[in-house]
């Protein structure tokens, strides 16, 4: 018995090169994790710290001079809440419309023996690789009178052919054709088949699509910048752009000029608010994400398998 264990241990014993391999790969991974995580941690920590300590480098790992002044300022900022409210409207509206469009079209595309399906799919897929471009799209939207409307902000980018193909692959591969045959023999129409059988079996893919659309809507700024005129409709990202980037670029350019001292002071005071703003605007997504990570990953996997 003891002998056997000894033999086993001997066989399992790592050689020096395996040790080296493990050490190096672990070091690599730890390095990657730190590189990725540290900036996020830094922002979170800096949002609670006295900016003097942050700027002097005294608060590099843990908060120092704990303060909620940044958050207080952010919470009192009416514009960020307006942006928040608008973004929530756009995300909810866009996700609802987009998910319905994607799931319905994806189901239709997944069915075999439907006249015209292959042509429709090709027509849709063509638009993944060729488009009218920025200006003609803008002009179409202008012609339709959709400029500066909340409806446009919801609907724009809510449907993507890529997502539809993900849905199609999922439905074509995971819902056996026999199920359809059995259902139709029992007198169930295709509508009943979809609502009673396919939808309940597609919860996972619906979650994938909902999350994809919602995150994309939450994070997009360019459409809002291009198509919105009225500040009262501005989205969160559009507001963030002003707070985080436009002001910073100005301060930076000034800092290289004469008013360096003044600019530095301004930058210091503004930094705290910026950290807090980043946390407030990004936390909902980053807090939710680990719990639904599997759905995102699933989406990538299905998307990588050609339908």
């Amino acid at each position, binding site marked *: 018995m003891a002998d056997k264990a000894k033999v086993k241990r001997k066989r399992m014993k790592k050689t020096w090169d395996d040790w080296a391999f493990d050490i190096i790969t672990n070091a690599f991974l730890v390095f*990657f994790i730190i590189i990725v995580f540290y900036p996020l941690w830094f922002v979170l920590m800096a949002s609670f710290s006295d900016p003097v300590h942050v700027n002097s480098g005294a608060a590099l790992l843990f908060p120092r001079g704990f303060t909620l002044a940044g958050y207080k300022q952010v919470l009192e900022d009416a514009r960020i809440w307006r942006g928040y409210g608008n973004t929530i409207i756009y995300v909810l509206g866009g996700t609802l419309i987009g998910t319905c469009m994607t799931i319905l079209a994806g189901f239709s595309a997944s069915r075999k023996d439907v006249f015209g399906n292959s042509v429709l799919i090709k027509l849709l897929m063509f638009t993944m690789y060729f488009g009218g*471009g920025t200006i003609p799209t803008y*002009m179409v939207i202008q012609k339709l009178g959709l400029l500066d409307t909340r409806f446009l902000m919801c609907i724009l980018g809510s449907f993507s052919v890529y997502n539809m193909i993900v849905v199609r692959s999922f439905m074509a591969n995971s819902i056996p054709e026999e199920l359809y045959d059995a259902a139709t023999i029992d007198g169930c129409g295709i509508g009943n088949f979809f609502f009673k059988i396919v939808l309940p079996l597609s919860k996972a893919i619906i979650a994938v699509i909902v999350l994809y659309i919602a995150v994309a809507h939450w994070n997009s700024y360019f459409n809002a910048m291009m198509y919105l005129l009225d500040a009262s409709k501005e989205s969160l990202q559009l507001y963030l752009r002003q707070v985080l980037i436009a002001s910073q670029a100005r301060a930076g350019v000034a800092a290289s000029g004469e008013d360096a001292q003044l600019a530095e002071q301004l930058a210091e005071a503004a930094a705290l608010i910026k950290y807090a703003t*980043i946390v407030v605007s990004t936390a909902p997504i980053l807090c939710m994400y680990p719990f639904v990570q599997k759905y995102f990953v699933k989406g*990538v996997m299905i998307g990588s398998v050609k339908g």
Partner: protein
Amino acid sequence: MKTRKWNKKTIMKSLKRNWLLYVFWLPAIIYIAVFAYAPMYGIQIAFRDYRFADGFFGSEWVGLKWFKKFFDAPRFWQILKNTLTVSIYSLVVGFPFPIILALVMNNMKNLKYKKFAQTITYMPHFISTVVLVGMMHIMFSPRSGVINTILGWIGLSGDYFFMGEPQYYIHMYVWSGVWQSMGWGSIIYMAALAGVDLSLHEAARIDGANKLQRVWYIDVPSIMPTICIMLIMRFGSVMSVGYEKVYLMQNALNTQQSEVISTYVYKMGLLNKQYSYSTAIGLFNSVINFILVVTMNKVVKKLSGSGLW
């Protein structure tokens, strides 16, 4: 999917049985018609001298005037060069990292640790471009930024204006991209690695192969098809650099280095109101992109037997 032969009878049967599917198609088709095909129809203003007063069809047909204007513009080569430089630099630097990360993560025996590493490295994918660039602005700002503070400690001037001065622009752009997309990009390789037959590893281990050898001779060849396809796809998009991040990182100092086709189109079109000129530039870019994608898809098809379509 096999396309079947259609005749009048089977068409009628399909229509009767599947009419609801066409209703299901409808919203998506309307969406694509409005936001993709209608703009494609509008491309013709690239060949016209569009004036608001003359309207869409009333505007004079000018042929290739705008294309010539763009090719002759002094900035043409600069913009083309910027577009290709930023794209190829991103490709060369950004491509290997997800693969290395996937290989490393795949070798972690502790599942909890592996999951943790995945969760952390995927995270930046969910940060918006605005927040990413905003974070860079604060952390890399001259003097007060944390990076410059650290550089100051190790004896450098600590006064680098990373987000402003043009010589840093491209590195900032590319490496922040690596930071943001490295983890997410590794998913596809993780999936490929999950499909590697464990008995191969077992057999190699018994034959005395060490871990590095097993990675090199089993894991890497197993994911090679995925690597090739991903690489070819990336070549297909080498001329399409999105405007979102570039536009955010642009400032008065670095425009010369940072201007790419998509940002130029946006500025010329919507800010300078040169609709026709800007549409022509956009069309030039789209056509090249399309040719590249189609070519690369052919290559993939030849190599792996199945392409994107």
